[in-house]
């Protein structure tokens, strides 16, 4: 049983890795259409991506929309999470459920709703409309991450600060926020990625003016499978890799620096 599982496991590793390793060589391919292995290599499609406004504009739109979504999501979710994790009140379990509900609704259903609802307010095909829609889908994810962090928070640290004379506001700024910072950063990152990757709602409501990168990619794959998509895929892939590996690398660098720094400096430095 053990050996069988291991062999199957290795095959699955190949299955999972295959699509990820194929887009990188494809992005350097000189083939005009989908062809693997590539007949030759060049950087033409990279040049094409970085000079073509029909690709750069959706990329920029996505960055703007994802950033705005992240900010709005955090403004709404941070206070709400404090209320739900730290307080007991009537209707709390219903409120908890409401926070997660947008995650349970299929995106295509939300897309139909937004298409009609935002249309009534002339918000379809606007950045603002897409941000409003994306925020709804980011809220549950940001909430899940942040509430898990807040539940593990040792409140004695706040009590200690207050017993030493810190005002509630000072306690919040100097104790609560710094401890929560990693949770806040990850929560915001999740909200950003959720919006940056969101495709179905964006296909229906982002239109020409606020076209996001996934929408442009979707249209392009559907129509012609433009090889530039392999370039974007590779760039996105590198971004994900950096985001995953960077924290570990930073930790290593910090450790090395700390090894050379006197301990007192560390405690004030953080």
């Amino acid at each position: 049983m053990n050996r069988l599982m291991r062999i199957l496991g290795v095959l699955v590793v190949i299955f999972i890795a295959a699509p990820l390793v194929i887009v990188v060589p494809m992005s350097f391919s000189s083939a005009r259409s989908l062809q693997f292995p590539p007949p030759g290599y060049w950087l033409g499609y990279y040049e094409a991506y970085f000079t073509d406004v029909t690709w750069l504009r959706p990329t920029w739109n996505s960055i703007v929309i994802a950033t705005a979504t992240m900010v709005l999501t955090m403004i709404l979710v941070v206070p709400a999470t404090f209320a739900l994790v730290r307080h007991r009140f009537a209707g709390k379990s219903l409120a908890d459920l409401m926070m997660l509900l947008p995650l349970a609704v299929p995106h295509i259903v939300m897309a139909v709703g937004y298409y009609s609802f935002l249309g009534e307010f002339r918000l379809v095909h606007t950045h603002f409309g897409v941000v409003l829609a994306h925020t709804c889908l980011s809220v549950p994810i940001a909430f899940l991450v942040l509430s898990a962090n807040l539940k593990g928070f040792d409140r004695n640290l706040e009590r200690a600060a207050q017993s030493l004379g810190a005002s509630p506001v000072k306690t919040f700024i100097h104790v609560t926020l710094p401890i929560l910072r990693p949770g806040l950063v990850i929560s915001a990152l999740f909200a950003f990625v959720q919006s940056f990757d969101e495709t179905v709602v964006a296909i229906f409501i982002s239109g020409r003016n606020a076209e996001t990168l996934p929408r442009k990619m979707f249209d392009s794959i559907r129509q012609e499978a433009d090889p530039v998509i392999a370039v974007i895929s590779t760039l996105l892939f590198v971004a994900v890799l950096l985001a995953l590996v960077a924290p570990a690398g930073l930790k290593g660098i910090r450790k090395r620096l700390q090894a050379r720094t006197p301990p007192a400096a560390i405690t004030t430095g953080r």
Partner: protein
Amino acid sequence: MGATIARLSQRPNLWPWLLLTPLAIYLAIFFVVPLADVAVMSVTEPKTSLANYERVLTGALYQQVFLNTFLTAGLVTVACLLVGYPLAYLMNHSSPRIAMLILLLVTMSFWTSFLVRTYAWMVLLGNNGPVIGLLNAIGLESTPQLLFTRFSSTLAMVHILAPYMIMNIYSVMRKIDPVLIRSAESLGARGFSLFRHVYLPLTAPGIANGCVLVFVICLGFYVTPVLLGSPREQMIAGLIGTQIEEFLAFGMGSAMAMILLVVTLAILAIYHRRFGLDKLWG
């Protein structure tokens, strides 16, 4: 803030309501109302009646699409389990370094946009792709069309959804106490029987979690079936999209969306009563 809370708590506590209000208002306007809009459209477009539901539930085409959606979701779920279980097992029984590498790969796959992965499968399964090339090299002359079939969309969906299954099963496997396995072995359990009577039941919660999650996400999948699937074997989300975008048939599209929503929520509600919804994504 803590002291303020303490002071306020003598009176009926207003703090949580104050903190919740902005989000509650936002969700009421931009989540509840659009959904209600869909519900209303399903019975008022083009005129007030239940005709849309009648057509969706009795029309042969729609029944076929619903059936196809459920079959595909079931197939994808089973395939994800078959793929995910051995990988979780391999991760759990490898050296920490290898387990880390596999975890990194799975996480990377999970975080990579599914448009990227859908595109990659188009390259892999395309007529000039490596899979067809391999089949030709083996000696198969007339290779089958792989792209734009039920096979290609199913395979891509399995690839896209497998990380959900893997993560769920792995997190349960990791918590299994090795003492349980050793004591089962000392009592004579070996090989398959050890797996069947000890290991499998211990990992069952992870399997249930993963299966519900994969099935529900697959039911509403739009992008991959539209891009990679056969146009003749649509899934429900794709058909909703066609109704809205091409025919502007908001009533029909909304009725189908409502049925999809009700089915999805029903599955999740059953799950919620037994395990709690927050466990699903945690």
